[in-house]
């Protein structure tokens, strides 16, 4: 019965995801050769390789399975293998803890997925995607809404949408860095694949509120993710929070696509989905790159705390360049790839607003503005990250003794950094390809959407049937060329002028010595944000003075923290409630076998009496 073509699907969407998985994982695999060296014993290294292999295969299975059973088995396998990676450094308590949080939450998500799958299965009596698709279109509205919500929660948990993001900043940083890059870059994207596959393809979109709900969740994810990232000083956790943010941006495209489908604007839906998919692959690349760089930095310095780094640009010049490229991309700076997808997403919002009425326009505009805010905050966050980690003077002994990493790690980073640039400059051709993917997924003829390969001219006549509008332009190669030429001109001018240049100490206000203790810290950098967003972060600080006498303070310590809102107001109460309930349940579990037998016996007797009644 097992038939290859019946259980696997290789449509453009799957192929796109296979591509995403393979590029990031191959770079990460190359990187891991150097990363694992000198850090683990030989058997653990072998174990890591085997797990990596299984992990990648399971992800490939997830995106190619055309059968509910294949899908769910691969999905579970993926979760389990990644759990092993989270607890890979099992000697640390926090690894075990992170693994616990991860495995529990991921299974709660899977439970929701299973519920949705069972409901779908009940309609179709088949596991095959095509059959499911036909059956789902006959389902009543109410059922479809329920299935949609279940799917959203289930996949949202894996993707890390707020408020189900809670596991992500624990689990991702705890895994070895090359795995963090795969988890953040690729694994959470499989949830997006699931959403597209099950909601667009199988379930079919009916109500506009689906799209709007996804948009709202996405906006919240963006903002929450980036604000928490700003507050974070653990470099890998910072990146993990940025994954929450970027998943939000991807979902903006996807949610907009849902909305347009339900509004019967197929071409715009294709376009919005293109924006989402473009950001998906971009995020896979640059987040993969950033995690690899973070891994290099952590390996070189032996710490993940940014406040202990600094001045690494002189000690690790290659890593610094790669990290800068990644940081520019994630901050959506032209001419790199993050800029293109953010531009496309904003355009999708704008074009959508042209085609809707009244309040929806304002809503879409505000969504776009929030996306812009996210972009600004992300840029601030990466100025902080790059500035504190790589610039100025080393802040500790760890950073002082850092050395550049080995060739294989550099090679892994180089591949992804090159891809960042390529995906920026070749935006036109990539958008063309993505239009094919997205049009095939939505079942729309995409050939009407023509974009020239060098310009991203949005041909509005093709995109929309009725309303007025004029084309918008963006050309990445020309833009890059313009920037480079102008920069080169000024460089030449500077060189021709040839003024005397001398090197001296940083200006110290006449103070005798400026050291690394005078530098701005990450905490200080993020202080304005902490205060501006205090309505959400609830920052508090502790000060402690050690006095010799009333007049002489010998030591002074200052700590500042932010309140983890979701943990404190959502998860802790939930946990407390569950524990209370469990304690109640424990009362009927005294440990006596007789009592347990009596429970069963009583149930049987009751059943018999119950049957006798009817």
């Amino acid at each position: 019965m097992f038939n290859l073509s019946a259980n696997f699907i290789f449509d453009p969407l799957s192929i796109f995801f296979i591509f995403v998985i393979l590029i990031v994982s191959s770079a990460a695999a190359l990187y891991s050769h150097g990363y694992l060296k000198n850090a683990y014993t030989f058997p653990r290294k072998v174990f890591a390789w085997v797990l990596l292999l299984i992990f990648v295969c399971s992800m490939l299975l997830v995106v190619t399975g055309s059968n509910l059973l294949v899908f769910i088995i691969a999905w579970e396998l993926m979760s389990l293998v990644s759990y092993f990676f989270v607890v890979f450094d099992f000697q640390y308590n926090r690894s075990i803890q992170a693994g616990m949080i991860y495995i529990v939450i991921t299974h709660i998500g899977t439970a929701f997925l299973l519920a949705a799958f069972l409901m779908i299965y009940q309609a179709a009596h088949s596991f095959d995607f095509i059959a499911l698709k036909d059956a789902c279109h006959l389902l009543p509205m109410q059922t479809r809404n329920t299935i949609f919500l279940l799917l959203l929660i289930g996949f949202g948990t894996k993707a890390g949408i707020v408020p189900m993001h809670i596991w992500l900043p624990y689990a991702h940083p705890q895994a070895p860095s090359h795995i963090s890059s795969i988890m953040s870059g690729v694994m959470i994207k499989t949830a997006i694949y699931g959403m597209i596959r099950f909601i667009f393809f199988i379930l079919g979109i009916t109500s506009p509120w689906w799209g709007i709900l996804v948009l709202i969740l996405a906006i919240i994810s963006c903002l929450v993710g980036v604000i928490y990232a700003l507050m974070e000083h653990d470099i890998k956790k910072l990146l993990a929070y940025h994954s929450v943010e970027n998943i939000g941006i991807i979902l903006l495209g996807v949610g907009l696509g849902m909305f347009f489908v339900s509004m019967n604007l197929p071409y715009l839906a294709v376009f919005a989905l293109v924006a989402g998919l473009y950001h998906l692959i971009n995020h896979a690349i640059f987040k993969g790159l950033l995690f690899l760089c973070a891994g290099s930095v952590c390996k070189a310095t032996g710490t993940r705390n940014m406040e202990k780094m600094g001045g690494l640009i002189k000690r690790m010049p290659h890593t610094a360049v790669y990290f800068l490229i990644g940081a520019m991309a994630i901050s959506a700076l032209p001419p790199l790839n993050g800029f293109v997808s953010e531009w496309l997403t904003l355009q999708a919002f704008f074009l959508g607003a042209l085609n809707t009425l009244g309040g929806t326009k304002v809503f879409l505009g505000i969504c776009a503005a929030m996306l812009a805010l996210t972009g600004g905050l992300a840029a601030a966050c990466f100025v902080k990250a790059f500035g504190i980690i790589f610039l100025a003077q080393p802040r500790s002994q760890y950073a002082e003794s850092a050395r550049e990493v080995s060739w294989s790690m550099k090679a892994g980073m180089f591949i992804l950094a090159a891809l960042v640039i390529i995906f920026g400059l070749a935006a036109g051709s990539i958008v063309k390809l993505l239009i094919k993917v997205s049009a095939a997924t939505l079942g729309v003829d995409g050939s009407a959407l023509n974009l020239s390969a060098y310009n991203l001219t949005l041909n509005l006549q093709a995109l929309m049937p009725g309303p007025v509008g004029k084309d918008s332009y963006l050309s990445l190669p020309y833009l890059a060329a313009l920037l480079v030429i102008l920069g080169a001109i000024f460089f030449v001018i500077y060189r021709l002028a040839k003024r005397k240049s001398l090197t001296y100490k940083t200006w110290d206000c006449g103070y005798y010595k400026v050291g690394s203790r005078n530098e701005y810290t990450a905490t200080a950098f993020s202080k304005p944000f902490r205060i501006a967003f205090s309505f959400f972060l609830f920052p508090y600080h502790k000060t402690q003075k050690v006095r010799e006498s009333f007049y002489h303070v010998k030591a002074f310590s200052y700590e500042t923290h932010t309140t983890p809102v979701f943990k404190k107001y959502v998860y802790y109460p939930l946990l407390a409630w569950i524990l209370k309930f469990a304690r109640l349940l424990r009362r009927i579990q005294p440990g006596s076998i007789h009592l347990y037998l009596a429970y069963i016996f009583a149930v049987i007797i009751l059943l018999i009496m119950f049957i006798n009644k009817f």
Partner: protein
Amino acid sequence: MQEITLIGILISTCLMVVAKSLLALIRGFRWQSFFLFLATFLIAWKEAQPSLYIIAGLLLVIKVVLIPQLLYKIIKKIKVGQGLGLFVNTQLSLFFVLLFAYLAWDFSSQLIVYGSHAQAGIIAIALFLVLVGFFLMVSRITALAQVVGLLVMENGLFLLASAVSGGMPFFVEIAIFFDVFVSVVIMGSFVYRINKFFTHIDVDKLSHLRG
């Protein structure tokens, strides 16, 4: 003829319920198994099924001879007191058992709408055996009583199977016999172990192990 065997089963079961010592319990079980053997033999004769003869023979060998023998041996080996340890005293137990009998009868008469009266009786008694077996497991403290209770339940299931469909498929039946036998052996050794470690076989006291 069949009625007599059935009544024999009933009575021997009641004997087990009122038994206060382990030896009496096992004796009751032996009688019960014996009457069950007779009933099976009669069914086999009536329906002229050779496989049922074999099963009846196995019943005789294993449940009437071997298992009680084994249980006796265990008792002798672990030198426990003869007391069963009752949660529910014998009078009250008898009252409960009568209630079960009523329930089982009520249930089986509903279950068999078109079946013969005699068959309804067999099903009622089979169900009754299951319930009593369970009741013995719940209300007796020592671990050996639990073993016997399980065996009684198994007897009930056997009776039900042979009454409704003229016995389960032959191989299944054989497998079940071996299963039961092996399980008794294993449980016996467990009881022996428990006794060795805790110097008693009161299952009730296992609750002290709870964390």
